[in-house]
C-alpha cells in the first residue's frame, strides 16, 4: 500500500512537472494552480479550482512561512492590504509604507528581489497611500515576463519579473507618468507633483494592454468640488504608449454631458474608478465600476443625474468607447460608490444560458445585469424616493431598486423589527435613540442638516460590501458577498469660513467641525504633507455635548448579526444563506447590561472590510476584529465555510486581523493559502499556510 501511494505521488509529481512546463510556454492560469490576477482571473471571481485544502483538513493547516513587511518603507505599515499573484512558483506583490514591489519564493517566502521607487513630495501628497493592493503580471509566453504596478505618486512602472529591474523600453526608463493628461476644470492639466490623484487597486492586464483606473481624496469634507476628474486609460504593455482613454465625466458633445445641468461638468470632479476593473475577453468588453462625484453627500453644485457617476460602464476593449452603461444611483448623495470588482458569471436562467455581470454594493444589493447589453436580468424598479430638504440640493425623484436577488444584508432600517431586543430595556433605549434620527424604507434616505440639539442624521446602511469585494463559484453559479449589517447616519453642515467652496460638507451643527481623512490619505513614506491651518471653531461648539451614536453603551442599536457572509444563487436569483461572520465581540459577550441574556454568535460589524477567496472545496474569509473568547488565545480566525450551506467547517487562529484578501496556489503538489494580516499591535505580514507533509501522503 505504501509503495502504491509513493508511486501515485510520483505520477502526480511528474504530471505537475509536465503541466508546469507547458504553463511556462503559455499564459498563466488558475487551472494550473496559479493566481495570475488580483481577483484570480479577469472575471473578478477570486476562484481557484484547487481542493487539496478542504473541509476535512482545514484545521490541520500550519504556518508554512511568514513574510514581515516592516522595512519596506521608513516605518512599518499596519494596514497591509495586498493579495499576491502567483505565477510559476513565484509570488509578486506590494509591501510597506513605500509601496515596494517584492518577489517571493512560493514554497519558502524567501525574498527573490525587491524594487522601490522614491517619489519624495509627490508620494507624500498622494490621496491613496500605503502599500496598496498589489501588482499585475504580463508575459508574451516566450520569456518576456513583466510586473506592473502604480506607485503612490501615480506612476505606472514595468519591472522585469525575473530580476525586478525596471524595463527601459517601457515609457521613459520603465515609467509612465500617469498624472500627464489628467485634468480638472475645463481641460486644465493637474500639477504633476501636488495634483490630486492616485490609486490603491492593481492594474488589469489583458492581452498586450494594461488598464489603470483613478482615485481621488475621500470626498466627505473636501476643499473643492472642482477637483481632479476621473478617468481610465489603457496602455501598450510593451511600450507604455496610451491606447485609449475613457473620461468618466463627459465633455460637451459627448453622451451624458446633459446629465450635468448648468454646465456643471466643467467645475466638478472625482468620479474615479478606484476598484478592480474586470474584462470579458471574448466579448471584448471592459467593466468599469465608477464612483461618486464631488462631494460625497452634497450635490447642490452638480444638478442632474451626473453620468457616469455610480454607474457600471462597459467599454470596448480595443478602443475604450462606451458600449453600455447602467447607473445604479442617480445624482449620488450617499457615497454608494461601486465598492467591488464587477463579477462575470455564465449561468442558466429560466432554461437559457446567460452571460451576466454582478455588482456588489455598499447598499447590500447585488445588481445583476446581462453583460452583453447592460439590461437587468431581473426587474430593477425606478421608485420614487424621499426628497432632500437641504438648501440648494435637487435630489433625483426616483432611484433604481433591485427586486432580485433579495438584499444580502440590511439595505434600510426596519423600526422596530431590526432594533436590539436582548432585553426589553435595551429595546426601549434603542427606540429612544432612533427617534433622534430620520429613517426611510429605502437606502436612498437623503442626508439632512443635522444638529446636535435636534435631528442627528439620516439613517443609511453603514456599508455592506467595501473594497475587498466578493467572489464567485463558476462551477455552481454562487455569488459570495461579505457584508457589514449595521447602520450609520448622514448629516451635513456648512463648513467653517475658508475651508471649502462646497456649501455643505459632512458634519453636524452645534459641534466642532472635523475634517474626514480617508485611509491611506496621510501616511506614506515621506509623509508630512498636512499644512492646513487650524480651523476656526466656535467656543459654544467646542463645549457642546458629544453626539450619541447608534449604540447603547457600545451595544449596537440593531440586532445581530452585525456582519455576515452571504451566498446567492445566480441561476435563480435567490439568497442561499447568510452566516454571521466572526466571533461575538468581547465587549458584547462580556457586557454588564447583557448578563444572563442569551447572546447568539453576532458576527462582527467590520465584515465589510474583509475579503474572501473561493476554491473548488471552500469559501475562505478572515475575521475583521480581534477577540479573546474563553477557550482560545487572543486573535482573529481565518474561517472556511461550506459553499452550499454556509456552515463553518474550519477555523485557524491568526495573530492579527485579516487586512488583505486571501489567495491560493499550488507548488510541487502542495496547496498554499496566503493572507495579509496586520492591525493594532501587529505590523504587516504575509502569512502562508499549508498542510503538513504527513497530511499530503495519506
Amino acid at each position, binding site marked *: 500500500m505504501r509503495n502504491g501511494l509513493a508511486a501515485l505521488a510520483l505520477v502526480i509529481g511528474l504530471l505537475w512537472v509536465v503541466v508546469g512546463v507547458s504553463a511556462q510556454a503559455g499564459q498563466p492560469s488558475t487551472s494550473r494552480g496559479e493566481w495570475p490576477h488580483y481577483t484570480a482571473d479577469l472575471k473578478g471571481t477570486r476562484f481557484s479550482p484547487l481542493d487539496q485544502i478542504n473541509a476535512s483538513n482545514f484545521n490541520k493547516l500550519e504556518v508554512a512561512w511568514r513574510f514581515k513587511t516592516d522595512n519596506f518603507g521608513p*516605518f512599518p505599515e*499596519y494596514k497591509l492590504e495586498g493579495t499576491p499573484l502567483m505565477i510559476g512558483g513565484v509570488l509578486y506583490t506590494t509591501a510597506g509604507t513605500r509601496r515596494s514591489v517584492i518577489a517571493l519564493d512560493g514554497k519558502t517566502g524567501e525574498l527573490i528581489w525587491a524594487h522601490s521607487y522614491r517619489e519624495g513630495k509627490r508620494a507624500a501628497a498622494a490621496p491613496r497611500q500605503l502599500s496598496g493592493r498589489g501588482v499585475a503580471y504580463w508575459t508574451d509566453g516566450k520569456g518576456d515576463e513583466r510586473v506592473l504596478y502604480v506607485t503612490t505618486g501615480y506612476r505606472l512602472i514595468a519591472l522585469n519579473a525575473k530580476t525586478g529591474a525596471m524595463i527601459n523600453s517601457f515609457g521613459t526608463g520603465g515609467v509612465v507618468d500617469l498624472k500627464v493628461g489628467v485634468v480638472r476644470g475645463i481641460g486644465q492639466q493637474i500639477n504633476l507633483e501636488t495634483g490630486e490623484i492616485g490609486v490603491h487597486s492593481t492594474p488589469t492586464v489583458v492581452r498586450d494592454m494594461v488598464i489603470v483606473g483613478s482615485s481621488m481624496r475621500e470626498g466627505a469634507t473636501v476643499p473643492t468640488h472642482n477637483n481632479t476628474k476621473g478617468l481610465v486609460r489603457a496602455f501598450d504593455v510593451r511600450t507604455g504608449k496610451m491606447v485609449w482613454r475613457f473620461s468618466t465625466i463627459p465633455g460637451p458633445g459627448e453622451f451624458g454631458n446633459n446629465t450635468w445641468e448648468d454646465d456643471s461638468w466643467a467645475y466638478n470632479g472625482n468620479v474615479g474608478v478606484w476598484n478592480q476593473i474586470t474584462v470579458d475577453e471574448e466579448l471584448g468588453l471592459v467593466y468599469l465600476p465608477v464612483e461618486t462625484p464631488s462631494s460625497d453627500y452634497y450635490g447642490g453644485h452638480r444638478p442632474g443625474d451626473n453620468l457616469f457617476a455610480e454607474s457600471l460602464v462597459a467599454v470596448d476593449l480595443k478602443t475604450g468607447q462606451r458600449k453600455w452603461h447602467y447607473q445604479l444611483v442617480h445624482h449620488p448623495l450617499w457615497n454608494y460608490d461601486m465598492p467591488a470588482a464587477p463579477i462575470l458569471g455564465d449561468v442558466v436562467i429560466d432554461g437559457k444560458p446567460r452571460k451576466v455581470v454582478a455588482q456588489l454594493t455598499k447598499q447590500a444589493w447585488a445588481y445583476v445585469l446581462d453583460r452583453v447589453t447592460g439590461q437587468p436580468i431581473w426587474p430593477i424598479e425606478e421608485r420614487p424616493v424621499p426628497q432632500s430638504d437641504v438648501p440648494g440640493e435637487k435630489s433625483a425623484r426616483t432611484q433604481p431598486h433591485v427586486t432580485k436577488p433579495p438584499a444580502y444584508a440590511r439595505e434600510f432600517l426596519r423600526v422596530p423589527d431590526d432594533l436590539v431586543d436582548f432585553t426589553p430595556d435595551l429595546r426601549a433605549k434603542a427606540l429612544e435613540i432612533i427617534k433622534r434620527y430620520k429613517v426611510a424604507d429605502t437606502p436612498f434616505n437623503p442626508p439632512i442638516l443635522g444638529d446636535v440639539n435636534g435631528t442627528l442624521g439620516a439613517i443609511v446602511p453603514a456599508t455592506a460590501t467595501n473594497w475587498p469585494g466578493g467572489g464567485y463559484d463558476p462551477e455552481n453559479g454562487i455569488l459570495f458577498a461579505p457584508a457589514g449589517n449595521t447602520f450609520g447616519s448622514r448629516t451635513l453642515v456648512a463648513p467653517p469660513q475658508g475651508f471649502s467652496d462646497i456649501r455643505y460638507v459632512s458634519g453636524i451643527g452645534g459641534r466642532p467641525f472635523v475634517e*474626514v481623512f480617508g485611509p491611506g490619505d496621510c501616511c506614506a513614506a515621506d*509623509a508630512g504633507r498636512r499644512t492646513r491651518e487650524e480651523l476656526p471653531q466656535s467656543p459654544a461648539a*467646542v463645549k457642546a455635548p*458629544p453626539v450619541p451614536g447608534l449604540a447603547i453603551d457600545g451595544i449596537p442599536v440593531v440586532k445581530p448579526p452585525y456582519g455576515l457572509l452571504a451566498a446567492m444563487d445566480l441561476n435563480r436569483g435567490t439568497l442561499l444563506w447568510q452566516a454571521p461572520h466572526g466571533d461575538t465581540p*468581547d*465587549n458584547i459577550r462580556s457586557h454588564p447590561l447583557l448578563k444572563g441574556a442569551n447572546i447568539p454568535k453576532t458576527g462582527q460589524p467590520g465584515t465589510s472590510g474583509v475579503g474572501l477567496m473561493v476554491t473548488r472545496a471552500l469559501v475562505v474569509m478572515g475575521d475583521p476584529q*480581534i477577540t479573546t473568547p474563553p477557550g482560545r488565545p487572543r486573535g482573529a480566525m481565518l474561517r472556511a465555510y461550506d459553499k452550499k450551506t454556509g456552515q463553518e467547517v474550519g477555523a485557524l487562529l491568526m495573530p492579527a486581523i485579516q487586512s488583505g484578501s486571501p489567495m491560493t496556489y499550488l507548488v510541487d503538489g502542495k496547496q498554499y493559502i496566503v493572507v495579509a494580516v496586520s492591525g493594532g499591535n501587529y505590523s504587516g505580514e504575509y502569512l502562508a499556510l499549508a498542510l503538513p507533509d504527513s497530511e499530503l501522503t495519506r
Partner: protein
Amino acid sequence: MTGTRARRVLGAWVVAAFAVVSFAAAASVWDGVYTEAQAKRGEAVYVQRCAVCHQPDLEGGDMTPALVGGVFTANWNDLPLSDLFDRIRITMPLDSPSTLSRAQTADVVAFLLKSNKWPAGETDLPRELEPLREIRIQALKP
C-alpha cells in the same frame, strides 16, 4: 568567591527579586500605573496632535478608530502596554509619524488609560519599553 563579591551577587539577587515583586504588584492596567498629572500632560498632547482624527472625545470618526470603549479595549486586550506605546510611537500622528518623544508618548498612553477608566496611581508610567512590557492591558477587571 570572596565575601565582598558574594555580598554583591546576593545584593543583585535581592534587587532583582524586589524588581520582580514590584512588577508583579503592577502587572496590569488595573493597578494604578500612571498619575493624574501625567494624564493631564497627555491630554494636552492629545488635543494638539491626535484629536483632529481621533476626535476630542476619543470616539474616532468615519475612518479613524475610537480610542475609548469596548472595541478599543478588546482590540488591545491581553497585550503588554509596550505594544500600544510602540504602535503610537512608530506610526502616530499618521501625517508625521515618530515625532512625539518617548516621554510625550508615555503621557498620551496615560491619558488613554485614564479615558478608559483604568485607575491612576502614585508613579508615572515609564517611557522605557522594558517595564511597559510587564504591564498587561486587561479589558475586564480581573
